[in-house]
């Protein structure tokens, strides 16, 4: 049957089960918008294309489904780049559709032409320029397949305007086969056996968990393995939520702002069981001294992350869930008294926990930012979905909100994108209209995508934003304080809008707390309010994030409070 490109687009999205698109129109996507007008697929009109991509990404992280966005050519497309790079670094499945000038004009520097496939090549998992409407269905099918399988990631589909209006024979391709793309899911059984043996031999093993546990939905298996073997768990920023933070075997986050216990455990362990983590520099610190005495097991779906930063003694390529299941059944056959074997190690760990827990000095006069996060945890009973911006706000959230379940922390880990958290919260709220969604923000970051307040108001998305307002680009200021003799070069935000009035101007609700006694009250009020709420917490201006490992130092060398 013949259909127009635009019709094919909608048919394919429907087949993929897409319920919502985050987008922003323009000349080159008019035919797609015209058809969207008549369909059941929901479209959320953002106020900046970067917001559309972050929202689609937040939606994807909250649900595990593919997030979708649609923007016009040229500036619409280039505005998506930061969003795409953010999703790429954290392996988030999104498909970005960009309009393009008509095929005959490509390459002529036509009005609003940008080579977006070229521009995004290094930050997409794959990309397509569709030059013929006859290929559109196959491309869309492949795009969703590639975005969501293997190690997930963003895929860009660039569609020239004439392809949207051309008619083509349409048959939905039920099967996808991309010969150059065959992700390995099943872990090699011989290698898994080696892991089981290494675990049985080890005196001081440690599970080291990254975001892969979450994308593979393997947190139940992880919990089972950890409990069965009494092996403690440390996580990267991306792994938070993959293992319950309040579990006795949880050591919290590791790395630059990780817990003392996590970093000491990583330094002293004899066996690292790394799952779905990249061993990146924020985690390893000085890599030569990282886990020097340990045997390293590295389980990852992406062969390129294995052996990239740290040598893996037992590498396994595959899906974490599949491998953990097999590992658990092998472990059950081992005749080891795990509890007894790890008794000494766990005693040592308890000692570390007792000696240097994550802590700050409470104040009766000024609001401590850490206190705000503890209070958010309390009033939401740990059941909210939390997004963050980037900087101190992000690290305090990681340290003080006790994430219990996967997909409850949504944060830009790899790229560290300021301005991410708020649109991501909008995406998560679209997915879960009845959940409490908090964006924990800095006063700098929130202003990078503040325009999305209009989106939240328009679609009645009752997202809460907690601004930890220190009138500084706090994290950068912290580095200047510690490593540049307090020369606060351009990190003081001397002029701010009145955030309460700003929220009101957008039609949202603005609240402010200036005293520790007000924190809980304001939070409760925010939660009661069925509207977007922006809360301006005036916090201790020069509070620092501790522990901290200075860049390039081994992770055992932490600056403590």
């Amino acid at each position: 049957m013949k259909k127009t490109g635009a019709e094919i687009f909608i048919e394919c999205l429907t087949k993929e089960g897409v319920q919502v698109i985050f987008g922003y129109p323009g000349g080159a996507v008019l035919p797609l918008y015209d058809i969207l007008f008549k369909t059941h697929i929901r479209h959320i009109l953002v106020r900046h294309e970067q917001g559309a991509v972050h929202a689609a990404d937040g939606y994807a992280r909250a649900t595990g489904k593919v997030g979708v966005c649609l923007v016009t050519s040229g500036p619409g497309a280039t505005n998506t780049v930061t969003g795409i790079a953010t999703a790429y670094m954290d392996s988030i499945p999104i498909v970005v559709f960009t309009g393009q000038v008509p095929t005959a004009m490509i390459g002529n520097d036509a009005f609003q032409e940008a080579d977006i496939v070229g521009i995004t090549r290094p930050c997409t998992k794959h990309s397509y320029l569709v030059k013929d409407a006859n290929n559109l269905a196959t491309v869309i099918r492949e795009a969703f397949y590639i975005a969501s399988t293997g190690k997930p990631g963003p895929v860009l589909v660039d569609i020239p305007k004439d392809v949207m209006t051309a008619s083509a024979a349409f048959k939905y391709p039920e099967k996808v086969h991309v010969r150059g793309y065959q992700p390995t899911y099943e872990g090699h059984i011989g290698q898994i056996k080696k892991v089981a043996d290494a675990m049985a031999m080890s005196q001081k093993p440690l599970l080291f968990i990254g975001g892969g546990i979450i994308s593979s939905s393997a947190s139940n298996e992880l919990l089972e393995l950890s409990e069965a073997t009494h092996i403690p768990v440390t996580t990267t920023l991306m792994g938070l939520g993959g293992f319950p933070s309040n579990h006795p075997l949880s050591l919290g986050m590791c790395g630059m702002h990780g817990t003392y216990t996590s970093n000491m455990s990583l330094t002293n362990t004899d066996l690292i069981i790394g799952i779905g983590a990249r061993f990146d520099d924020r985690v390893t610190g000085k890599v030569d001294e990282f886990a020097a005495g340990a045997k390293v097991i590295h389980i990852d779906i992406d062969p390129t992350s294995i052996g990239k930063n740290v040598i893996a003694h037992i590498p396994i390529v595959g899906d974490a869930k599949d491998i953990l299941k097999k590992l658990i059944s092998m472990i059950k056959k081992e005749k080891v008294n795990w509890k007894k074997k790890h008794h000494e190690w766990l005693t040592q760990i308890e000692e570390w926990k007792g000696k240097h827990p994550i802590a700050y000095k409470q104040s009766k006069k000024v609001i401590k930012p850490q206190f705000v996060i503890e209070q958010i945890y309390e009033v939401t009973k740990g059941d909210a979905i939390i997004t963050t911006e980037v900087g101190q706000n992000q690290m305090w959230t990681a340290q003080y909100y006790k994430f219990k379940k996967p997909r409850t922390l949504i944060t830009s880990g790899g790229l560290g994108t300021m301005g991410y958290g708020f649109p991501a919260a909008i995406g998560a709220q679209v997915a879960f209209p009845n959940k409490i969604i908090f964006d924990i923000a800095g006063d700098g970051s929130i202003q990078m995508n503040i325009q999305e307040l209009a989106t939240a108001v328009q679609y009645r998305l009752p997202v809460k934003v907690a601004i930890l307002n220190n009138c500084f680009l706090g994290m950068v200021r912290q580095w200047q304080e510690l490593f540049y003799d307090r020369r606060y070069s351009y990190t003081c935000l001397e002029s701010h809008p009145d955030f309460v009035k700003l929220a009101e101007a957008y039609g949202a609700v603005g609240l402010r707390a200036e005293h520790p006694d007000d924190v809980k009250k304001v939070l409760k009020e925010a939660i009661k309010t069925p509207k977007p709420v922006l809360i301006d917490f005036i916090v201790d201006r020069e509070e620092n994030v501790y522990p901290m490992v200075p860049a390039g130092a081994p992770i055992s060398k932490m600056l403590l409070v």
Partner: protein
Amino acid sequence: MRHTISVLVENKFGVLSRIAGLFSGRGFNIESLSVAESLDPKVSRMTVVTRGDDKVIEQVTKQLNKLVDVIKVIDHTEEKFVDRELALIKVNAEPQLREEILRITEIFRGKVVDVSPKTYTVEVTGDEEKVDAFIEMVKPLGVKEIARTGRIAMSRGSKALTT
């Protein structure tokens, strides 16, 4: 160490820039690159010569494999293989030099493929060393221009690299 890597890729728009971008973006070096259609017109074959320690080369091959349009990657350095280059060399061919050029060309089993009153264009094939050696021999006579293809390679024996 130097590695010669053959890569089968989808013969699609933009594939070359994906490969080139991978090398430049990750700081891998390319000493030479040659690309053309393979037996199957839907597939191109690339030969990349690159340099790096084992860790770098492991990343190069893994990263190549990770590209969706890459179908197969083999590093010939781990096996026996043959490799060739082709060069066109435009040499000064004043009458008194012609005899010498022809003699050298003969020794290298090259071919004169174009003549003009003042120049000969010689085609030479062989491994890189042979092509280098030829160029060194004719340089004193005055080389005006050279064009080289970069290396192509194939495993020895009956094993074939196909999709």
